């Protein structure tokens, strides 16, 4: 093999190599849908309800709303609104940004959390451990929404959310023999929270809708 030939081959690869793009974002493990924590723990659809309420809170901040009675549209507001309209104040924009950030974190955490139905004490502990960041992100979102809405009725939801986070956190680090009972309590309380959120979100959305489209 001649040196010239070797150099020509190297140049071919070098030219292609110079066109290489940068690395893509790290791909995430998809959460298998039947094991998604929201399906396991929250038959009332806590995640969707949280997004609904956060969407309502966004609209309180924005001072305007689109199709507020449409859950998917409201969810889209919560998930996708990153820039507030020019009419909103800087403080509102900042609060809305925080709310969306908290909402995104909750979506990320809940989509990554995978809980197989636990049977042993160790599995119950592992399940609770994996749910701590989910409940933490959920509570963060609810806190943000609570600040935006400033409604005593929603304040109770925020307190229940904080209690639930406390329960799961304590269970994840508590005695092994209590893990199963804590897990079952968390399941029940999550379902209850989901119902509270659904009710509140639906009522607020209906109220907004009637004001906007009398």
């Amino acid at each position, binding site marked *: 093999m001649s040196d010239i030939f070797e150099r020509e081959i190297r140049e071919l690869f*070098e030219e*292609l*190599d*110079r066109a290489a793009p940068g*690395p*893509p974002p*790290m791909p995430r493990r998809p959460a298998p849908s039947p094991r998604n924590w929201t399906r396991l723990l929250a038959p009332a659809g806590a995640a969707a309800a949280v997004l609904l309420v956060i969407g309502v809170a966004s609209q309180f901040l924005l001072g305007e709303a689109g199709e507020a009675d449409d859950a998917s549209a409201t969810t889209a507001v919560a998930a996708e609104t990153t820039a507030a309209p020019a009419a909103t104040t800087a403080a509102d924009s900042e609060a809305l940004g925080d709310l969306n950030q908290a909402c995104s974190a909750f979506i990320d955490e809940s989509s990554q959390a995978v809980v197989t139905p636990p049977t042993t004490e*160790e599995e119950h502990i592992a399940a609770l451990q994996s749910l701590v960041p989910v409940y933490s992100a959920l*509570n963060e979102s609810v806190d943000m929404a609570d600040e935006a809405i400033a409604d005593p009725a929603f304040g109770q939801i925020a307190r229940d959310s904080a*209690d639930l986070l406390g329960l799961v956190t304590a269970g994840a680090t508590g005695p092994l023999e209590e893990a199963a009972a804590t897990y079952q309590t968390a399941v029940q309380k999550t379902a209850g929270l989901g119902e509270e959120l659904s009710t509140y979100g639906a009522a607020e959305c209906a109220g907004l809708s009637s004001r906007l489209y009398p």
Partner: protein
Amino acid sequence: MRSEVHTGESSDRSQRRGDAAASQFGDVERDERIYRSHAPELVRFANSLVGPSDAQDVVSSAVLRAFTSKSWPTVENPRAYLYKAVLNEVRSDHRSTMRRRARELRTPAPHSTEMPEVRPDVYEALGKLSARQRAVAFLTYIEDLDESAVADRLGISTGSVRQHLGRARAKLRTILDE
């Protein structure tokens, strides 16, 4: 709105919990660390196999496949494993890749202004090589690896490396002499 966290459990219990959690949910931090370390070189490697249009997609698919593999938590050499995953991804997608490449050769895709353009004859020349021949040649000529290192990276024997490199050179010689 935050509750206190209980502390004071035994290290043995912590270990059992950690093992249970790790086996059930995987080690995301480890994955992120590995990905950050190797993603740029994996994309360059994929680029040498399928070109810039599909390099990122190939890496994403290969990495996701690796991360969700049952054997991934016990892999001792993640770098080599990911190189093999990228190569396998390309080989399993070979037919559609070849069809797309043929289309690109007929109508070169516009490149981003941030990327240097690649002459069509480069695609044409390297397109004559199989995925393994390209992989071996890339690691030899661009990464400057010797036979043994290429064999380790791709999980093949040094004999196979010699064979693939020899065939790659022979094909390229024919093309370059034309």
